[in-house]
């Protein structure tokens, strides 16, 4: 899947809750932190940065995320995909849908 950049992504309360569930999976941080360090998706998924703000996510952020996910064990990746799939089925605006598509499918 080709990932699109997202300008001005604002996360609603359900998306924020879902990301907080992903953040709880601390093992993810262990696997991904070195690869994602400094990236926007690292700030969203791994750190404790506030999610009540607007984000710009670039195609390169998604590509880096997809590469980092290659080093995450399948069981953990599967649990994150469950969270993302549940979000994708919600009534989302286009930007949040694009965000969760990037998390679920990764990028080519």
């Amino acid at each position: 899947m080709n990932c699109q950049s997202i300008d001005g992504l604002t996360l609603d309360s359900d998306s924020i809750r879902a990301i907080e569930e992903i953040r709880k999976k601390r093992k993810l941080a262990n696997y991904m932190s070195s690869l994602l360090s400094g990236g926007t998706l690292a700030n969203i998924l791994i750190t404790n940065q506030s999610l009540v703000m607007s984000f710009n996510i670039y195609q390169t952020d998604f590509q880096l995320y997809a590469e980092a996910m290659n080093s995450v064990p399948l069981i953990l990746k599967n649990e994150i995909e469950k969270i993302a799939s549940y979000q994708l089925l919600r009534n989302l605006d286009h930007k949040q849908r694009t965000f969760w598509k990037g998390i679920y499918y990764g990028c080519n």
Partner: protein
Amino acid sequence: MAAIKYFFILLLFSNNVFANNLAEYNRTLITYENKIKACKELKKIKFSNKMKLNIDKDSIRAGLSYFILKNDEECSKKEKSELINKINTIQNDHSIANLIRLNSKNLLEVFKDSSKILSEAKKDFMALDNKTKMKLEKIEAYTRPFDPMMALEYYLKEK
């Protein structure tokens, strides 16, 4: 002399048990991962059961949200259950390295969070009226793991 012999036999037996615990844990881990891969393959299958759903979009979403998590869980339920049993077994086996036992215990935490999401999705689905639930339980997405975007396009005409 007999006591020493008995001691070594017991030690050998014990070592075999401990070695078996670790081997069994590794086996259930690999079996579960293989099942996850097999379940993912099922998601590639396109929907084919054409039926007109005279149901509002929000109800369809509630159905799909519950079904996607329910089907994922059911697809690998047996393998996951065996893995969880093995994780619990090795916690008391101090011949297995602490790091292995700790890493396995972390998996239990990972599993705990996802069952919470499933409960929430089920609650939303069960809140639908019986007629709507019965209609939704007849769709193909009720029966097997599926791809979320495929479902959105097929049932809600969304991309």
